[in-house]
């Protein structure tokens, strides 16, 4: 099997939700002496890109995306210890979470999956995240982005408060803020001074990369 064929196999099996096969093939790539970084990029991430498209086209829904993401993570677990050099230096770093008072996290989880598939380093604070935590974690990991989500109108205000906290700590210029969720809109994002609003996970990855490159 050639390298190209192997990458194709990994990609297709990821799309087909065959976690065990993906794991086996990733192990095989190491036996074949293929650099881990290449396998991750050409096999796993390439596969997740197709999954993202299928999700956008409404062929795949959450259950399918979750399993594909598991397949990707199993592959990454096999390959990560063999990554050469410090590949994290040039990665986009993001802190993500559901705003304090809200526990709806399916959308946030989907965004996290797509961001990781897009090569972004994501620090997930989970749900019902105390507002200070967004700022503290962003400081701790030197994040480029804080990404906040909520499905409830009653917790939207928290997003504005996080932005104010960033300003108070002199961090507003170095950390970009992206928001999303059911009741969120571009108008609300503009009103509170957020840098980005997107209506779904795929758009989020695209726009975050665009903003980061432009900066």
């Amino acid at each position: 099997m050639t390298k190209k064929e192997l990458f194709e196999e990994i990609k297709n099996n990821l799309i087909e939700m065959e976690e065990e096969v993906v794991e086996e093939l990733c192990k095989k790539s190491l036996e074949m002496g293929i650099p881990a970084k290449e396998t991750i990029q050409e096999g796993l991430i390439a596969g997740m890109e197709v999954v993202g498209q299928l999700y956008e086209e409404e062929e795949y829904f959450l259950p399918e995306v979750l399993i594909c993401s598991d397949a990707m993570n199993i592959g990454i677990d096999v390959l990560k210890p063999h990554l050469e050099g410090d590949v994290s230096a040039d990665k986009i770093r993001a802190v993500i979470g559901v705003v304090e008072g809200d526990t709806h996290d399916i959308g946030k989880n989907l965004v996290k999956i797509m961001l990781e598939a897009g090569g972004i380093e994501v620090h997930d604070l989970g749900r019902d995240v105390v507002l200070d935590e967004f700022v503290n974690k962003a400081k701790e990991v030197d994040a480029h982005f804080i990404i906040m989500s909520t499905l409830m109108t009653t917790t939207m205000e928290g997003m504005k408060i996080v932005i104010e906290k960033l300003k108070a700590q002199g961090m507003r210029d170095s950390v970009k803020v992206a928001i999303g969720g059911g009741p969120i809109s571009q108008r609300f994002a503009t009103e509170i001074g957020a840098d980005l609003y997107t209506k779904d996970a795929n758009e989020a990855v695209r726009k975050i990369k665009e903003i980061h490159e432009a900066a």
Partner: protein
Amino acid sequence: MTEKQRLLDVLNGKSTDRPPVICPGGMMNAAVTEVVEGMKKNHNSDVDAMVEAAIKVHEITGFENYGVPFCMTIESEPFDVEVDLGSKLVEPRITKYNDDILNHLDEIKVKHSKRALVVLEAISRLKNNEIPVIGNITGPMSVVTSVIEPTDYYKMMRKDKVKAMKFLEVVTDYLIDFANQMIENGADLIAMSDPSATGEILGKKNFEEFMIPMYKKISEAVHRKETKIIIHICGKSKSILESLNKSGADSLSFDSVVGIKEAKEVLKAPIMGNVSTQLLDQGEEEKIKLHTKMVINNGTSIVSPACGLAMSTSVKNLKAMTDTVKK
């Protein structure tokens, strides 16, 4: 014409002088802070308070029904989850899942929790001839994703269909039992909300495979008791509209993202909905009145909020909505 007659006429496909305006209960309830704040006991667990809250909702908001309970947690209690019983500011919610339950599906003996019995007693006290009493149940997908971590269940739907289906069936059988007893205690109709089954999350294929058989089963059971059932699904449900024709529901209720006109093109049953709850919570009276008129003009058969009301919603705003319908 009584409020009960008008609502039942709509569900029986008869034309009425105007649409009824209701807030069924369960996920979509109007026991907002302003309604319950004076009450000494918890309307989510004490039978007197539950009855009092239901009556108060009808009296001061203008909604034309009684509805209990006021949360989505009671149906999960038989499966040993931890529940926070809420307060005058927040609704009850699950605080700890029971992931272990899947290992015991065969042995589980599902029986009513204390609060389920409170609901049945409340219904029997609310029973009357003029105001429709709605018994509310949480839909099967929302219950299973309240008992175990939702992403685990969604994955199971692909990875271990047999187990996922079995769990869903155990829950559905309990819901049928609960609904039947609500009817026996005097509920005039059943309303079921299943937000976790939204088309946005499941898509048409998963929805048809898992949910339609369960909804059919529930609807058939309710119909055997000569009672009607309303089903509410949240979110962007365009992908599952056609499938819902097979659910057996006597009326289908939607979120504000689903256009009533568009839904009417696909659905055979009368439509219920869908005044924006964000508007009801944060909007001004005039805007609410206009929006309610628009919803009526779009052809809704039963006017109701689009989804769960924020507890901070003012009675003034709710009255703006209900008064507009009754004018």
